[in-house]
């Protein structure tokens, strides 16, 4: 916990430095950051809205990470899942639509992650490069979908139509401006389920064993290839679900630039979370606060890039503290 505190202090110090450069008083800016993200019911609602996709996407990255896989492709899997969910929700409305759209999003995400898992497991090709490539293909593919087959003809910009109000995920708490969508509840539930699954089931144990030492796991009788493929596909499915929930709970449609980089932020969330899946919740909340507070800072004249810089440093610091490789004795 003190490490997280140290990281937070470092990040805030950096923010303060940047404020000095951009002629906004550091204390004033920090107050803006926190008031903008936690200061009022509306701000809290905004922070939770930013946190929601990061929880599900964070679970996706975290799951792969436990299997020793770096799923950089969550971004691509998320937008493909969102596109599939929108396509289905536009056809089928009501609770059945919600269910089918979620399943469709999961299937699309899993499908998008499958090549990376297969190449890793059976061809020994590095998953980082394949997932980066799949991200780019996903962006072009959905770009093409939005340019003709899925585009709403009544709109100028590349976007789909808006889904029916009956196909939206309900709010669990609604007292405007504080509105909490069930999307957030789903995210928290996913984190808890993942933590239980990793600790209490055989498949979860095998997955962590493969991640810790694939050779030892193989001699223990675990099918490492199957476990790798399963981890990658499940990670993709959860990422796809994150995209679907983002459509069903918040956006209501799919458009160009749908994800402002949730998949990449989720990587930071999963790394900050450490070795326990439950850590995804505070890490996701921290990223949510930075995202929402960053918007408030932008209004004050501090360029938004600064929050990305802080996140970059957080990733590097957290990795330096937590993800050190064991050096082989030579």
């Amino acid at each position, binding site marked *: 916990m003190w490490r997280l505190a140290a990281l937070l202090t470092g990040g805030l110090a950096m923010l303060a430095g*940047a404020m000095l*450069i*951009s002629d906004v008083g550091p204390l004033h800016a920090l107050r803006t950051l926190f008031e903008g993200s936690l200061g009022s019911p509306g701000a809290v609602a905004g922070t939770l809205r930013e946190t929601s996709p990061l929880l599900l996407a964070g679970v996706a990255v975290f799951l792969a990470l436990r299997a020793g896989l*770096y799923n*950089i492709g969550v971004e691509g899997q998320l937008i493909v899942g969102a596109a599939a969910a929108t396509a289905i929700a536009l056809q089928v409305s009501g609770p059945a639509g919600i269910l089918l759209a979620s399943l469709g999003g999961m299937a699309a995400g899993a499908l998008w992650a499958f*090549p990376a898992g*297969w*190449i890793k497991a059976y*061809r*020994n*090709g*590095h998953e*980082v*490069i*394949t997932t*980066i*490539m*799949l991200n*780019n*293909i996903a962006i*072009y*593919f959905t*770009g*093409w979908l939005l*340019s*003709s087959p899925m585009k709403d003809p009544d709109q100028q910009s590349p976007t789909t139509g808006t889904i029916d109000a009956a196909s939206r995920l309900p709010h669990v708490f609604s007292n405007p401006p504080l509105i909490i969508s069930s999307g957030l509840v789903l995210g928290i539930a996913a984190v808890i389920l993942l933590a239980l699954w990793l600790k209490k089931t055989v498949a979860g144990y095998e997955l962590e064993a493969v991640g810790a030492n694939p050779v030892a796991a193989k001699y223990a009788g675990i099918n490492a290839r199957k476990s790798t493929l399963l981890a990658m596909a499940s990670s993709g499915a959860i990422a796809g679900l994150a995209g679907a929930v983002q459509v069903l709970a918040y956006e209501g449609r799919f458009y160009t630039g749908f994800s402002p980089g949730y998949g*990449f932020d989720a*990587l*930071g969330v999963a*790394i900050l979370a450490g070795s326990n899946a439950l850590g995804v919740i505070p890490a996701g909340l921290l990223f949510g606060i930075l995202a929402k507070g960053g918007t408030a800072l932008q209004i004050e004249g501090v*360029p*938004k*890039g*600064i*929050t*990305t*810089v*802080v*996140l*970059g*440093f957080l*990733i*590097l610091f957290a*990795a*330096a503290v937590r*993800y*050190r*490789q*064991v*050096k*082989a004795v*030579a």
Partner: protein
Amino acid sequence: MGAPLALAAMGGYTSERSGVINIGLEGMMLIAACMTAVVGVPYGAVAGLAAAIASAIALSTLHWLMTQKFSVNHVISGMGINALAAGGSSFVFAIYGDPKHEGGVPQLSVWIFFVIAVISPALLWLYAGRTRGGLRLVAVGADPDKSRLMGLQPLQIRFVALVATGLFCGLAGALLVSYVGVYTNNITAGKGYVALAALVVSGWRPIPALAVCLALGFFTSLQYRFQGTGFLHWIPSQAWQSLPYLLTIIALAGFLGKNRTPAGLGKP
């Protein structure tokens, strides 16, 4: 379009051949492009180029520090570097960039860059295959433990390799800005990843990597040329743009010749 890719791919070559996975090529190019514009406008083209190279080398050295000194996973460090560059370039440009500046960024002749882009792969090939330093670089990348036993110092060799990576990415970023004469946020738009892809497809060999980059550049300009003329109009432009990424995946699956990945890639 092929030349900046080739320069970045050569940066990837020195890094990955020494055993350091480098997905930070994108970020290094981006920060270099930003510095070319931010420093180049008030102080001239040469200063801009120097700042570009210096900033890329700084990020590259950070990557070395994280991966080699702090033993951070190479991929995570690369992601961190990319985030720093993406945020840093947009922050710096928003504050110090001069949006009202007339006449664009002062430019050096792009021919200088082209000559470097074409000659450096051949030089790197000669260096890696024919000189003591080059053979050591490849040895460290192939098996850091054994090369340590042979009395080499992977950390030192990788430091030099990553400085070279920064140099090449700095040139690549500066060239991107010199083409169009203006800097826009996220001007690299994934070109660093494409360069990495070209390196992978060519089996981590410099001259084939140059050929792949030039071919990609050729197809990109061909696509611009045919845009709107009706030639092959039934193929969406997005399919063309996805092609290099798709080819990389097929190459990694081992369907394009044997797997030539440096054996020590990512090892401490």
